[in-house]
């Protein structure tokens, strides 16, 4: 499992952030056995930022429920300090909105804590390589977010915790009059300039995301749609990147509107 034991520089360096010592230690030991270099561990967001600055890990395994700051906040700050860092979100009983916020803030992957350890190892490897790691739950969230944006929900960037379930509800209701296509392929080309800035899914991306959300693996989807697994992975990854870019643009626009430049 770890052929490069003698060349520690080649092993992906992982920072484990979790406020539960038992879990933290268990995961750190497991990752070490699986051939990763554990760059350090941290019990809260502030400590994670300090340790990340000191040890410069390639991947941060980030628990969503930290005592001091939200997962989205930690992700934003980690990426601001080191844009090359990859964040893999882990959550035990994660609120859907918290997961979505952390993902749009720039995390590369998401996994539930009840996943098998081999899945975790594979996810860390993928994230280290810059590949998005999706669960069916995350695919459902991303689909929902695109539909919320397509339905004409306004900017929700800016605040530390942008968007509340409340605003999403409003968006869902507004959708009834928004002329959204049946397959959710985004709104028709309206004259509304805000609509042009909203990210949209291509028909293929929607198709792929729906299949991921329904539990199909990339090879299964590739076989069904007659694509290469690589292409499926790219489609999935694009849906996330577009959301993250949109979120970033919204943050910048919000900052400009507030006169912070």
């Amino acid at each position: 499992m770890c052929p490069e034991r003698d060349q520690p520089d080649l092993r992906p360096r992982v920072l484990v952030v979790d406020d539960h010592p038992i879990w933290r230690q268990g995961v750190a030991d497991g990752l070490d056995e699986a051939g990763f270099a554990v760059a350090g561990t941290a019990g809260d967001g502030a400590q994670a930022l300090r340790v990340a600055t000191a040890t410069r890990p390639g991947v941060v395994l980030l628990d969503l429920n930290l005592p001091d700051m939200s997962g989205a906040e930690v992700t934003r700050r980690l990426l601001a300090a080191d844009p090359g860092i990859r964040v893999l979100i882990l959550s035990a009983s994660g609120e859907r909105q918290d997961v979505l916020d952390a993902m749009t803030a720039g995390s590369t992957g998401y996994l539930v804590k009840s996943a098998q350890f081999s899945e975790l190892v594979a996810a860390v490897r993928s994230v280290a390589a810059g590949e998005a790691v999706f669960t069916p739950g995350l695919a459902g969230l991303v689909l929902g977010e695109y539909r919320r944006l397509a339905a004409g929900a306004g900017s929700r960037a800016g605040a530390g915790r942008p968007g509340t379930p409340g605003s999403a509800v409003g968006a869902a209701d507004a959708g009834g009059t928004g002329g959204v296509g049946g397959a959710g392929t985004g709104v028709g080309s309206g004259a509304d300039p805000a609509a042009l800035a909203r990210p949209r899914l291509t028909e293929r991306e929607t198709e792929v995301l729906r299949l991921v959300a329904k539990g199909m693996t990339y090879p299964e989807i590739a076989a069904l749609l007659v694509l290469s697994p690589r292409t499926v992975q790219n489609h999935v990854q694009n849906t996330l990147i577009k959301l993250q870019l949109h979120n970033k643009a919204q943050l910048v626009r919000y900052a400009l509107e507030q006169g912070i430049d």
Partner: protein
Amino acid sequence: MAEQMWRVVGIFRVVTLAYAAFLVIRDHAGFAHPAGGFLALGAMAAWTAVTVIAYARPAGRSKWLIGADVAVAALLVLSTRLILAAGQVSAGAPTIPASWAASSVLACAVAGGPAGGLAGARVIVAADLAERQALPQSTFNNAVLVLIAGGVGGYVVQLGLRAEAAADRAARREAAIAERERIARGVHDSVLQVLALVSARGRELGGEAAELARLAGEQESALRTLVSGPSATAAGPGGGQLDLAGLLGPLAGAFVTVSGPAGAVLLAEAPALALAAATGEALDNVRRHAGPDAKAWVLVEDDGAAVTVSVRDNGLGFAPGRLEEAEAAGRLGVAQSIRGRLRDAGGTARLTSSPGQGTEVELRVPRT
């Protein structure tokens, strides 16, 4: 509550002092000793200042001061006899302190309840009767009023304090429950973490550990469902709407994944319940027919015009023709039940399957 009562006593005292001053200034020409009237007024003003300041703090409300309060009021009532002509007093003219004397009775009532109020009232009434040595109608009325004020006032204060104590206990109990819940959340979270870890690592190890892992996994999902219970069943904010995502959330478990948008998916009550029930039936069907290792995924989508729930499993599946055969033979009870539910809710149900590819049920209800 008690603080407000003491403030009321202070206000009553100041107001009645003003009334007593008004009476002295209006009537002093007819007094036998006008200067004595003003002297008594000065004493009342000074005592008013002493008590208002002293009663403002709990430490100032000593038995001694309240006793002195009653004594001062009684003495001032008695002083009427020295200031007014004897005839005026017997005829029932107001005493020099007038209703100011009752403020000490109220102080007794607030401090000692009905018994204290009545005791104070008795002293003042006795002083009033002693100085008049007669019982004109106005004096009798005043005596009754003061006794009532002492008794009833004390009783009301007691009731108020008891109600306050009860409310205080309730608030404390509520705070204790909230704190217990906060601690429980932390404990639940820790237990979830450990169960997840045991479940994940146990499965890696295999053998007997895998059995432990399975048990831990079951408990984990049971606990998670329990913990997320109250929010999952959240009713809509009005208009008889329900959050479909909340209704379907509890269906998730070791073999079932539920996905959907981050926010609530609000739907009128009837179609929401129909979709939830149909989803439950579809999952039951998976458990019965898809094989022991089959997993199922529930996806909730809301495109504004309609709400779609897809239930897919990776089980055995069946050949396309067989579905129609079974349906024609009336053997596909569950599918018919699901279709019926959706038809009643104004929606549609679509069933697709192929051998080895699992089965997918797509439930769709348009928004009206």
